[in-house]
């Protein structure tokens, strides 16, 4: 599974989107556009990324720009997975 698939699948599960994530593209807006994405859901998403991908998110990286779109979140995950 590539980084974007991981992100989309985690969004689907964490936010319980009933399959809506299947139509997500890199341009899909997240923060402010998805009503399910409240602060508890963002936290669940960060924790999910850490646990599933074995990455560590620094506290100061919790930034609105990262969670703006599916593409920005995927870029962030890729930068974390890069050797």
């Amino acid at each position, binding site marked *: 599974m590539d980084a974007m698939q991981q992100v989309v699948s985690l969004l689907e599960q*964490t936010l*319980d989107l009933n399959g809506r994530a299947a139509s997500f593209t890199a341009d899909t807006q997240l923060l402010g556009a998805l009503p399910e994405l409240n602060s508890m859901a963002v936290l*669940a998403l960060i924790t999910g990324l850490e646990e599933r991908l074995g990455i560590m998110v620094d506290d100061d990286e919790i930034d609105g720009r990262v969670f703006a779109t599916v593409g920005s979140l995927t870029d962030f995950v890729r930068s974390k997975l890069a050797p």
Partner: protein
Amino acid sequence: MLKPVPPEAFFLDLPLAEGRGTARRFALLHPPQGGHRRGAVLYVHPLAEELNCSRRIAAQQARALARDGWAVLQLDLYGCGDSAGDFGDATWDQWVDDVLAGAEWLRQRVSLPAAAPLCLWGLRAGALLCAEAARRAPRPCHLLFWAPSVSGKVALHQFLRLRATAEMMSSGAKGVMGRLRQELDQGRPVEVAGYMVSATLASGLELATLSPPGAGSLPACLDWFELRMPEPGQATGAPPALRPWQDAGFETAFHLVDGPAFWQTPEFAAAPALIEQTVAALSRHGAP
């Protein structure tokens, strides 16, 4: 077929820290159904919003266990749910004392026979409280963990992060965690997601570990449940934190079941496999 006995809701007067008298804790007792007396189970809830999100499934599990012959007590800890006190006045030690007092009350209330087990059942940070209570309990307790927090340090960090994510939505989260830590280090409370967290509670939680009690607490069993969404490529092995319990002589079982992380979402969630397999796991330990 015997008529089902409904759960009883009431307040229990339990002690506060020394010299502060007693205060009411909200309690829900599910009496054992059908004349069985397998043993008693005390449910220890997770913290803050996770308590609210998990109420429904905890109640469903409590009823299912009662139908299988267990007496189950759901207790709201001091400053939580419908119990007296403010969250901001709660301390970790007070909560451990609540768990021990609740367990003792339950043992006496259902006149638990010596051979019948008492089981502490904890969800998320509730499992950390169960582990600490088991280390201090005068008698062996069985343990049932649901998606336990494996360390208080991580649990506190995740909880403080809620404030960071909330601030991210409005402005920016840069430096938020550092500021919160600094406040707590200086003995001042911080507010997270509508909950005041005292410096005492934060330090107590941060030191909490999921480590097993000593040999005086045997024989005892630990059933550890994790939930996952059905999906290929996910880890399926037992978590490393289970190992010390095996080494300590606990009879352990790890159960991976399909179901959502229901404590994170306020929406309706169902976890029938978790409830069914929890009943099956505990029935192996109950009095016949």
